[in-house]
C-alpha cells in the first residue's frame, strides 16, 4: 500500500494506470447497474475521466 502511494506521488505509470482502470471499471458498473438512475446519469463522465486519465498516465515513466 505504501509503495502504491509512493508510486502515485512519484508520478509512476503502474499505480496511476491502476487508478484509471478502477475509474473505468466503476464507470461501466454505474452505466449498467439497475438500481439508481443518478448513478447511470453520471456514469459517462466517470468513464470519460478514467479513459482520458489512462491515455495520459500511460506516458508516465515506469
Amino acid at each position, binding site marked *: 500500500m505504501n509503495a502504491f502511494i509512493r508510486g502515485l506521488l512519484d508520478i509512476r505509470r503502474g499505480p496511476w494506470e491502476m487508478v484509471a482502470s478502477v475509474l*473505468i471499471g466503476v464507470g*461501466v458498473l454505474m452505466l449498467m447497474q*439497475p438500481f439508481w*438512475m443518478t448513478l447511470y446519469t453520471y456514469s*459517462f463522465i466517470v*468513464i470519460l475521466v*478514467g*479513459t482520458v486519465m*489512462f491515455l495520459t498516465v500511460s506516458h508516465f515513466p515506469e
Partner: protein
Amino acid sequence: MIQSQISKAAEATPEPVARRIRGLSDRSIAWIFVAPTIFLLLAVNIYPLLRTIWLSFTNYRVNRPNNDVDWVGLRNYERILSDPDIWNTMQATAHFLFWTILIQVLIGFTLAYLINKKFKGNNLWTTIIVLPMMLSPAVVGNFWTFLYQPQIGLFNYAVGFLTGTDPASFSMIGDVNLAPWAIVIADTWMWTPFVMLICLAGLRSIPESLYEAAECDRASHWRQFWTITVPMVLPFLMLAVLFRGIENFKMFDLVVQLTGGGPGSVTELTSINLKREAFEKWRTGYSSAYAVILFVTVFGLASIYVKALNKVKQR
C-alpha cells in the same frame, strides 16, 4: 506530423540496420510502408470518429437534409443519460454480459482443465469444439431461431425429452422471461471455445517444475490447484473476460438475428437500440451522442485490455 515521426524513426534506427547500400533510404521505406495503413485508418476511422463527435452536438437528421442544423451543445448527452429506456437497454446488456461471461468462464475453464489432461485424441476434439466460434454469427443466429421453434425445434424437443415438459408449451424467443436466456445460450454455445482456448494457453504456460516442487512439499492436489493453477491462469482469464466483455457489450449480429431485440425490448442490447435510433428513426445527432458514449466506454475497456495483453505477453 506523421512524416516527421517516421523520419525520426528512421534516424533512430541503429546503424547496422539503417545501412544504406543503394536504392531508397530507410527513412523513405518506413514512410512508404506505414503511410497507406495510417492514411486508410485516418479516412475510415478517425475522420468518421471526429464527424460523430461533431454531429453529437447537433440536431442533424439524415432523412431531413434540408432542415437547418442547429448546435445543441450537450443536450443530446443529457437526454440519453436521463432516458429510462436507454437505461433499460443497458440493463438488458448487463444481464447478457454477466451471464454469458460467468457461464463461459466456468465451462471454458473446466474444458481447458480437462483437455490439459492430455488424453488421447484431445487435439481432434478441441478442433471440433472450436468450430462454432469461427462461423458467421448472423447466419448461425438465424438458424438458432429454427432450433428454438416451439414443437418442431430441436432445442425445445431436447428440453422436452429431458425434463418431460411439452416442447410446444414454451417459446424461447417469444417469451419475455425466456428470450434473455435464449441469447445467453446461443452466445455460450458460440463463444465458450474462445475462453477455453485462452485458458488452455494459460494452463500450458505453467512450468511443470512448479508442480514438482509442490509435490515434494506434499501439497495436496486441491492446494496445488488453488496456489499454482488458478493464479497462473488468472492473467489469461482476465484477457478472455475483457475481450468477451467488449465483444458482448457491442453485440449485434447474433442477437439481432435471433430475437431482433424482442419480445418488446427485453433483448434490445445497446447496439440494437442504437441501430433503431440511427437507421430507423434517423435521429442522427442524437444517435451520434449515443455512439460517442459507447465509443468512450469501449475505448476505456480496450486500454485495460491492451494492458492485460502486454502482461500476458511477458510470460
